């Protein structure tokens, strides 16, 4: 099977400081990969390099495109990369206000990607938007309300709807549950898990919350100081961490 995403030797430096160094892995269709590590360990840098938002200093990111098979997204032209990022890719930001247009109604937010790929029928766009609001458990009657009137959890779900409406195959998530209270987190995780399974999505989730990866991720990478210190199956790493840092991370979680 061809990997959906194949990362080889990704390195990003900020001057002499290392963002992330020599990261390699393969992600297969339908697989969810978690990246954990403390703040400043290079998780977000790595994610942004893979999602085409940062240009890595070295390495390649090969994505299996629908039309032309595996392509290196680092060297592909910008129009192609931007096309990917609004069709086959989705990016869920930690703060919903980074990923949403706050001055535009929920329906407009969900419809934007549809219109960006050429949909020009108002009724259809609105129908799709309402459908997606319901799929992320938002009342379809709120389709004309602005995200500013939504709660934090709803904004995050709206952001997910807006990203998934064009049926992407790969979702990048940067701390999708950060800043939400635990009961809202649980609902969001439940929803995400359902969507990932139903749509056979592949996802890369950056988080420092081990509960999130335990629930969602098939595989896990632990990062420290820009390097991957341990990688493997999620349960394996969480139940039997080998590297000293992974052991610290796992033992730091409060047991209630």
């Amino acid at each position, binding site marked *: 099977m061809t990997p959906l995403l194949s990362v080889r030797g990704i390195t990003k430096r900020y001057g002499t400081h290392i963002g992330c160094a020599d990261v390699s892995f393969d992600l297969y269709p339908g697989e969810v990969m978690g990246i954990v590590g403390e703040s400043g360990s290079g998780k977000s840098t790595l994610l942004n390099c893979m999602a085409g938002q940062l240009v890595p200093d070295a390495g390649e990111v090969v994505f299996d495109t629908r039309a032309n098979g595996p392509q290196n997204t680092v060297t592909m032209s910008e129009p192609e990369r*931007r096309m990917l990022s609004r069709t086959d890719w989705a990016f869920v930001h930690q703060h919903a206000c980074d990923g949403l247009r706050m001055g535009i109604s929920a329906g407009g937010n969900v419809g934007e990607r549809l219109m960006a790929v050429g949909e020009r029928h*108002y009724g259809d766009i609105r129908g799709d938007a309402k459908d997606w609001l319901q799929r992320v458990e938002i009342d379809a009657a709120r389709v004309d309300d602005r995200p500013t009137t939504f709660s934090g959890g709803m904004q995050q779900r709206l952001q997910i709807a807006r990203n998934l409406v064009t049926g992407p195959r790969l979702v990048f998530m940067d701390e999708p549950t950060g800043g939400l209270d635990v009961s809202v987190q649980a609902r969001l995780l439940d929803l995400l898990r359902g969507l990932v399974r139903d749509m056979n999505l592949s996802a890369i989730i950056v988080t420092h919350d081990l509960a999130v990866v335990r629930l969602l991720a098939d595989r896990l990478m632990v990062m420290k100081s820009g390097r991957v210190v341990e990688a493997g199956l999620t349960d394996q790493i969480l139940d039997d961490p080998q590297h000293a840092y992974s052991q610290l991370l796992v033992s730091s979680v409060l047991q209630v």
Partner: protein
Amino acid sequence: MSAYNFAYLDEQTKRMIRRAILKGLAIPGYQVPFASREMPMPYGWGTGGVQVSAAVLIPDDTFKVIDQGSDDTTNAVSIRTFFERTAGVETTTVTRDASVIQTRHRIPEERLHEGQILVYQVPIPEPLRFLEPRESETRKMHGLEEYGLMHVKLYEDISRHGHIATSYAYPVKVEGRYVMDPSPIPKFDNPKLGDMAAIQLFGAGREQRIYALPPYTQVVSLDFEDHPFEATKADHACSLCGSEDSYQDEVIIDDAGRRMFVCSDADYCKARQAAGHHGKDAA
């Protein structure tokens, strides 16, 4: 008069502006940056249009200025006088006789002919500005033809008002390529933009952009399949000349709620009255 160079601007500046205009004409709808000069009038009063007019005027030209269709409002009078003094060109109020027409917010009702130049004053040339505040990003969007966002604005209109409520500065697509702001003309005028015999030049002084439509360019107003573009106007006949298919201004005439509708194109209205047409309030 001789204290000024012809048409106020120095020759090097006019040359620079003409180059921007030529580039604009070569790439219809593309916003060409230019080094806008300080003009002896405030920004927002047509400094962009004035610079474009100054660059295209020649001594044989006949110049006309309209402001919201009228020849005798402040903006029109001051700009007309400005070029009478600095260029010494003939001026007129008759649309047909003018070779260069500078306009604010209207296209004359009368069909323009080949050889005429229509110069628009543009406050904000970037149609995507209120949706995407970053100039670097909007330029990229134009470059890569990413215009989905423009439809988000129209979508918002329909979801809020039930129809596309944008009634002026209605975005258009030029020759299937660039999305362009036609300056704040009423959308009633949009159909006249396309396939026009005259050259159309757009100047934005504060924003330092010039763009252009060569004669007979294809211009399409953006819309949805199930909410097509509609050129709307007040549903009244002109009170003075009786015209039913010209664009009308609503004029409040007392504090008891009485009002009248008159052609916004003063020259068109006058010509019709002279030809014997009369509306219900004609003197």
